[in-house]
C-alpha cells in the first residue's frame, strides 16, 4: 500500500479539487439563486455549454481571458432570456423548455465547433495566475492553493456576496418569497415576475461564466459536450443547499475532489479506469442524496409559473 498522505497526493487532491470544482461553484450558485426564486433551471447544462463555447471563441479572438469569461457570461445570460420569456413571462413548462435548451445548445455548439474548428482544434494559452502574498508562502499546500487565476478568488468572494444578499437584504427576502409564496409577495406590492426574471438572468450569467471557466481556464480548449452533466450536478447541489449559498462551495469542492482523486491516486501509483473517474461525481451525488434525502427540500412554488389572477 503506497503512502497516501504524501504532500504530492494532498496537493493534487485538494488543489485539483478546487480548480475542477470552480465551474460548478458558479453554476451551483446561479441555480441556488434561481431555485430560491421559484425557477427550476433545467437548461443550466445548456447555458454552461453555451458559455464554454462562446467564451472559448471570444478568448481565441481577443487573446484576453477576461473578454472570454465576460462573453461566456453574456452567452449564458442571453440563453436565460429564453427561460425568462417562455417560462416566467408566459408561464410555459420550465422542465420542457429547459430540456429544449439543453438539446438545442448541445446540437448548435457541436455543429459550430465542427464548422469553425473541426480541422484546426486550436488551444488557448494557460490563464495567468496570481499568487496571494504571504498565504502562497505557507508550507505544503500554500504555494499551489493560493496561486490561482484571479477569477477563482472572485468566485469565492461572489459566494460571500450572494450569501449576504440572500440573507440580509430586502432583495434576498423578496427572492425567497417569490419561491415560497409568490401570491403574498405580489400582494405586498413586489413584482414577482421581475424578481424571478432577474434571478434567472443572474443564474444564466453565472452558468455561462462557469462554462467559460471550464473551457478557458480549466481545459484550455472547447470540445463538444464538455460540460458532461455538470449542469445537472449543479441542480442537485442547489437542491441540497436549500438557499444557502455557501453550499455551492462545499458541493463544488466535493465534486472537484472526486474528479481530482484519480490524478492524485495516479501520482501515488494507483491506476483508476477512466470510466470510474467519470462516474465518481455522480455516484457521490447519489450517495449524498440517499443519505440526506430527508433534508433536500425545494421552495414550495418551485417550477410553478406565477401568473397574476390565475387560480
Amino acid at each position: 500500500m503506497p503512502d497516501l498522505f504524501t504532500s504530492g497526493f494532498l496537493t493534487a487532491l485538494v488543489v485539483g479539487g478546487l480548480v475542477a470544482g470552480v465551474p460548478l461553484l458558479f453554476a451551483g450558485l446561479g441555480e441556488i439563486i434561481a431555485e430560491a426564486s421559484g425557477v427550476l433551471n433545467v437548461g443550466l447544462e445548456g447555458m454552461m455549454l453555451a458559455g464554454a463555447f462562446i467564451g472559448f471563441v471570444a478568448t481565441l479572438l481577443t487573446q484576453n481571458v477576461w473578454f472570454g469569461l465576460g462573453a461566456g457570461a453574456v452567452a449564458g445570460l442571453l440563453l436565460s432570456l429564453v427561460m425568462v420569456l417562455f417560462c416566467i413571462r408566459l408561464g410555459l413548462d420550465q422542465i420542457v423548455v429547459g430540456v429544449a435548451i439543453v438539446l438545442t445548445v448541445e446540437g448548435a455548439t457541436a455543429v459550430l465547433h465542427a464548422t469553425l474548428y473541426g480541422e484546426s482544434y486550436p488551444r488557448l494559452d494557460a490563464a495567468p495566475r496570481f499568487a496571494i502574498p504571504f498565504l502562497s508562502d505557507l508550507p505544503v499546500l500554500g504555494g499551489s492553493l493560493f496561486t490561482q487565476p484571479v477569477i477563482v478568488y472572485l468566485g469565492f468572494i461572489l459566494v460571500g456576496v450572494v450569501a449576504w444578499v440572500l440573507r440580509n437584504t430586502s432583495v434576498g427576502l423578496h427572492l425567497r418569497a417569490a419561491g415560497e409564496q409568490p401570491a403574498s409577495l405580489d400582494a405586498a406590492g413586489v413584482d414577482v415576475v421581475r424578481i424571478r426574471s432577474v434571478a434567472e438572468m443572474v443564474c444564466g450569467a453565472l452558468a455561462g461564466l462557469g462554462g467559460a471557466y471550464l473551457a478557458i481556464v480549466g481545459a484550455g480548449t472547447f470540445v463538444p459536450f464538455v460540460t458532461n452533466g455538470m449542469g445537472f450536478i449543479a441542480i442537485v447541489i442547489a437542491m441540497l443547499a436549500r438557499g444557502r449559498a455557501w453550499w455551492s462551495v462545499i458541493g463544488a469542492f466535493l465534486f472537484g475532489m472526486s474528479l481530482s482523486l484519480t490524478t492524485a491516486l495516479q501520482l501515488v501509483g494507483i491506476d483508476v479506469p477512466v470510466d470510474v473517474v467519470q462516474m465518481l461525481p455522480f455516484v457521490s451525488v447519489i450517495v449524498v442524496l440517499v443519505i440526506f434525502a430527508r433534508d433536500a427540500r425545494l421552495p414550495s412554488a418551485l417550477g410553478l409559473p406565477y401568473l397574476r389572477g390565475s387560480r
Partner: protein
Amino acid sequence: MTSPLTSPEAVVDVAPPTTRGAGLGDALVRSLGPIVLALITCGALLAIVGRDPVAFYSDILQAGLVRPSGLQDSITRMAPILLVAAGMIVAFRAGMWNLGSDGQYLLAAACVAGTAPNVLAAVPAPLGWLVLGLVGMAVGASWTLVPAWLRARYGLNEIVTTLMMSFVGTGLANLLIKGPFDGPSTVPQTAVVDPSLLLFDLPGTRIHIGVIVALIAVAAVYWVFSRTSFGMRIDVLGANARAAQHVGIRVSRLIIVTFLLSGALMGLAAAVDMLGIFGYMRADWNPAYGLKVVPLVFLARLNALAVIPFAAFFSVLSIGGEYAARRAQLPSDFLLLVIGLVLTFMVVTQYLTDKRDRGEPILPRRRAGMARA
C-alpha cells in the same frame, strides 16, 4: 413533502383515447407545426454555416426513406425508439419525469450483449431471446429503483436523480464491457453473437421482428391507459398525486411500479437493439435516445399509438441525417439541434393554440416590463 414541480401531464393536454374527426386540424397544427418550423429554422442555420439546406434535406429523404435499404433501416430504427417512447409515456403519465433512459438502456444493453453469446449457445434461440429480453427488462427496471424509492419515500425530485443514475449507468456499462464482458477482440467490446442466432428478419427484408415486439408493446401501453383501471390509476396519480391518495390509491407503491415498468421498457429497447441489429456492444457506444425521444412523446400528447408516426419521422431523420451530415461534413449531433427546436416550437404552438381555445388574443398583451425583457 412531495416536490411541487409540474408533472409531465401538465405540459400537454393528454389526448383523449378516441379522437374522431373533431379537432383533427387542430391536432395536425399542434403536431406538425413545430416540426415544420424546426426544419425551416435548421435550414436557415445550415445556410448560415454555408451548407445547402435543400441538398441536406433531400439527402435525408433519399437515404432515410426513398432508398429501399434506407427505408428498411429506418423501420428497424423505430423499434428502440418506440420502446423508449413507451417507457417514457408510462412514467410521464404518472407524473414522473424519467429522464434517465440512457443509463437504463445502456446498462441493459451491456448486460444483454455480454450474456447473449453464452445464453444463445446454451438454449434454442427463441428461448434465449425470451431470457435475454427478460434480462434487459430486469436490468433496465432495476436502474430506476433508487430514483423511484427516493421519490416515493421522500418526494425527492426524480428529474435529477434519474439523470444522475443515467450517468452512473453509462459508466458502469463501459466498465462491464471492458471488464467481465470483454470479448476476444482487441478493442473493448463484447463477444459477437453468431448472426444466425439474432432475431429473425421479416421475410424478404432486413427488418427484424423486434419491430413487431415494439409495436405490440406500444399497443399494450395504449390498451392499459385506455381500457384498464391500472392505467386509470396511473393517470389519476399523474393528474394530482394528492387526489390519488384521497381516492385510496397507494401512491408510493404505484410510483415504484410505474418507474419499474418504464425502466423495463427501456431495457427491452436495449435487448431488441442488441439481439436485432448489433449482436455485440462496443465500449463508449451510446445512441443517446433519451432526451431526443422526449419531444416525440409530447408531440403525441402521451398517447402511445400516436407516437408511431412521430417515431417514424424521427427514424427517417436519424438514419437519413447520419448520411446527410456526413455528406455536408457536419457532426450527426445536428439532429440534437433539430429535436431541440422541435421541442421549443412545440411549447410555443401549445401555448398559442391553448390561448386561442380560451378565446384570448394569440399575441401576448404587452404588459409593463415586457419591453425590457
